């Protein structure tokens, strides 16, 4: 069954189509949730809330090709993660300017396994990790991040550079096995 017809059936409230969609995306979305919410059970709670929202608002979703479901789900999940973190954690962002503009070593990351990169990202402190995930992986710009996290654009840039410096330091210290 094509994704377009699965979506059409989901809109009709077809449970089998909903389960097919859930099975196809749940694992990947759980991984995304765990990039923001480290605890597995918390991440699962966020995932379920996200899917519930997805199915509740599926009428408004227009299928427009291969990546459209994943893209839409990602947006929902990221928002759910932020709602969860705002409710349950008190995350502080360092607003001070971080003068140094850090550039990560591309060769190191080229050789590195995706699972290890994920471990590295998950080891970042909460504030750094959120900005790093949003900017580098989700592709948000600093203005969008600033709005989402209620910080300044400079604060967002600063968090990103601090995150990169943290990653670089871990690589230099050879704490990560390539």
């Amino acid at each position, binding site marked *: 069954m094509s994704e377009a017809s699965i979506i059409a059936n989901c809109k009709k409230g077809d449970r089998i189509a909903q*389960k097919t969609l*859930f*099975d196809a995306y*749940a*694992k*990947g*979305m*759980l*991984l*995304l949730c765990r*990039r923001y919410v480290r605890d597995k059970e918390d991440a*699962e709670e966020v*995932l*379920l*809330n996200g*899917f*519930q929202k997805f*199915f509740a608002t599926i009428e408004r979703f227009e299928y427009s090709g291969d990546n459209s479901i*994943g893209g839409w789900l990602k947006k929902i999940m990221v928002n759910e993660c932020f709602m969860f973190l705002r409710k349950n954690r008190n995350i502080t962002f360092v607003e001070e300017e971080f003068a140094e503009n850090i*550039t*990560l*070593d*591309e060769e*190191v*990351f*080229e050789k*590195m396994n*995706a*699972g290890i*990169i*994920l471990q590295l*990202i998950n080891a970042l402190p909460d504030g750094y990790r959120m900005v790093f995930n949003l*900017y*580098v*992986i989700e*592709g948000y710009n600093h203005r969008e991040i600033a709005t989402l996290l209620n910080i300044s654009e400079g604060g967002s840039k600063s968090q990103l550079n601090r995150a990169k410096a943290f990653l670089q330091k871990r690589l230099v210290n050879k704490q990560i096995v390539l």
Partner: protein
Amino acid sequence: MRTDRAEEIIRQKITALETTEDDTSVDTGKLWEALHRQSNKNISRKKQFAFYWAAAAIVLIIIAIGFLLLPAQVNYNDTLATTEPTDTSAAIFCTIETTNEEAFSSEYLDPPGMYAMPADAMICYNTNIPDTILSD
């Protein structure tokens, strides 16, 4: 377009990992069941919420109707007070429990037509009542 090549590599690798993720330790069946339970719970919560709102609305409507009826009764009693008979020997001091004018009847009153009110709604507390009224 991002210029940092390392960032681009990280983004591609993580996106690919999340797209092709097949972690066997994640039981999607269990998660699906949990999603079902959660949505059912939410539905019953919604029903409960709707029930409480409906109950509150009914109570408010009853209170509102009560407030609307109260002034009507008071007004009628005021009118009644001005039509008290002068002949106290056969006087009936009554209060009224309805404002339905069609149900009014004065045929048993003395003098007839002196004060109109529904015969079945009268609570009379004067013992000096003519037999013509009591016998009916």
